[in-house]
């Protein structure tokens, strides 16, 4: 991932890791995204908010390589990239924590952490020992409350499952991590732990996109907020310079005060 080796730690002059330029996407007659531009910066959490159907999921699916835009450019560390498959996006260092978590319940934590990228030995067999070792390492590093990485994912609590999905994003060295509604299905306590995990990732210098309906956690966590409405970008604001009421107004479009 040498193309991602941008200087880290320059908090005074944060450089955008991922840039979206005038990306559009239509499904039949429905314009899901209309010339949207935004960027993600290392060591920052950017929240993407908007009502249902505003285009949040479409943007996430484009950035994670699941869908392709009709037009527009995506730049990674300044260079234009084609995210034409999930695998491609992952190999470029864009990790996604999907809303449905994309976990296989009947496999253990270690297998899920390496899903689709199982390490190999002698060219044929899966290197199970390395898999367990790497899994244990990332679980320990993130301080996820899991006793063993051999536990079946289906036996875990909602928060633990979410943590496994986050750990997978971290394990594969994503410089960019996309979170699609990470706390929607969780209880308060479990949601807290996931927010802590996201903070830990930010502290490690990752560029994070947080898609969430939960305005409270957005204000708690995000450095910047990007608001979409009906597929259009209506605002990009720093969290410190706005209020929850203003953001809610922007989402529902009652008063287009700051609209561009």
């Amino acid at each position: 991932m040498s193309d991602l080796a941008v200087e880290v730690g320059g908090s005074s002059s944060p450089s955008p890791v991922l840039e979206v330029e005038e990306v559009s996407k239509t499904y039949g007659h429905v314009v899901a995204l209309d010339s949207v531009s935004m960027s993600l910066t290392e060591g920052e959490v950017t929240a993407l908010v908007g009502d249902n159907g505003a285009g949040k999921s479409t943007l996430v699916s484009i950035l994670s390589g699941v869908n392709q835009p009709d037009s527009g450019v995506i730049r990674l560390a300044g260079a234009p990239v084609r995210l034409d498959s999930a695998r491609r996006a992952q190999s470029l260092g864009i990790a996604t924590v999907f809303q449905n978590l994309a976990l296989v319940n009947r496999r253990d934590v270690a297998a899920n952490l390496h899903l689709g990228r199982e390490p190999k030995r002698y060219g044929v067999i899966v290197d199970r020992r390395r898999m367990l070792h790497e899994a244990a390492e990332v679980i320990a590093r993130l301080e996820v409350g899991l006793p063993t990485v051999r536990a079946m994912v289906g036996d875990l609590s909602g928060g633990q499952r979410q943590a496994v999905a986050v750990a997978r994003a971290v394990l594969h060295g994503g410089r960019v991590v996309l979170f699609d509604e990470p706390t929607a299905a969780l209880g308060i306590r479990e949601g807290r732990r996931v927010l802590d995990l996201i903070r830990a990732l930010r502290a490690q210098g990752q560029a994070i996109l947080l898609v969430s309906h939960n305005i409270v956690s957005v204000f708690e966590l995000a450095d910047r907020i990007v608001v979409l409405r009906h597929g259009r970008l209506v605002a990009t604001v720093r969290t410190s310079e706005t209020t929850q009421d203003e953001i809610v107004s922007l989402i529902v479009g009652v008063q287009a005060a700051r609209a561009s």
Partner: protein
Amino acid sequence: MAASEATVDRALTRRVPTQNAIARQLGITGVALGLFAFFSIFAVHFFAAGNILDVGRLVAFTTIVGVGMTFLFIAGEFDISVGSQYALATIFMGLLVAEHGVGPWTAAVLVVSAGTVIGLCNGLLTTFLGIPSFIVTLGMFSLLKGAALVLSGAFPITFPVELESSFFSVASGTVLGIPAQVIWMVVILVLGGFVLRYTRFGYHVYATGGNVQAALANGIPTTRIKIYCFMMTGAACGLIGALQAGWLKTVSPTTGSGFELQVIGAVIIGGVALFGGEGSVYGTFIGAVILGMLVNGIVLLGVDGNYTQIFIGLIIIIAAALDVLIRGEGRLASLLGVSADRVLTRRRARHVRVGSPHGVDKEVQQDH
């Protein structure tokens, strides 16, 4: 620091004690052993060497195709046309050898390749047209059976008596008293078990059947995985078709009628999850052994042979019902309130959560 990291790692990679799948494999192995003991004691001639070998041959073919079917089931698909594929494979072998003078070895290779192509067709129809594999292979079941009848003129084909080939001993000889078919089975079983358990392909088969969306989102080519599983099943049908022809030196278009029942029955009894994502080739082997012993033993007990079909049907339904019940799904499970699996899961969940190294989730301990 390094020492503490090492202990964290070791703790984090320790095994979970009770695993459902293992418990179930032990369970059906017990059933198979019990059945073996029962028939050995009560069915005259069951324990005779000749009879054991007969059961072995029966089990061998079911298991060879069962290995492919296990892959298919785990990937979330299945193939009801294996009996017809088997019939067509034997006829194809017969035509090549008896009418076109192709050498048995070459013919066998062609038959296995043809089986693979049939599997490819099943796979392409299922994945690209999006027709459920039940429908695709039901159509193929009739189509291929018809093809076997048309190609053979509905008559058996017999190899020339003077024909000799080392293929015949490979297909039907014995090594240290063990029939060749059983040796083929062991080879396929070991190979299949290895691929499923230890290779990346095997991991992807489980992921595809376990959660196809998750597999796709993580870059696993699920369509290709499914097609490969169909091709393996087709190749297995080709192999047993060639072996069968090499053994009897005569082939019949009615070969393999009811064979799909044996294979799918073995897979279900073996505990492969009905909706994918779980199972092992060992379970399928034990399932095939159980079915093989039943078919043979019931007749030796003096029961009218026509009853065997009834027993097989009942056992498949019971095995499937247990599978659903153990998973805590279905109406019966909710009527009974607590399913075996829920008890197991809860016991495991307690183990999983208690003693977390970071002391979180402690509150779960109170919940039982």
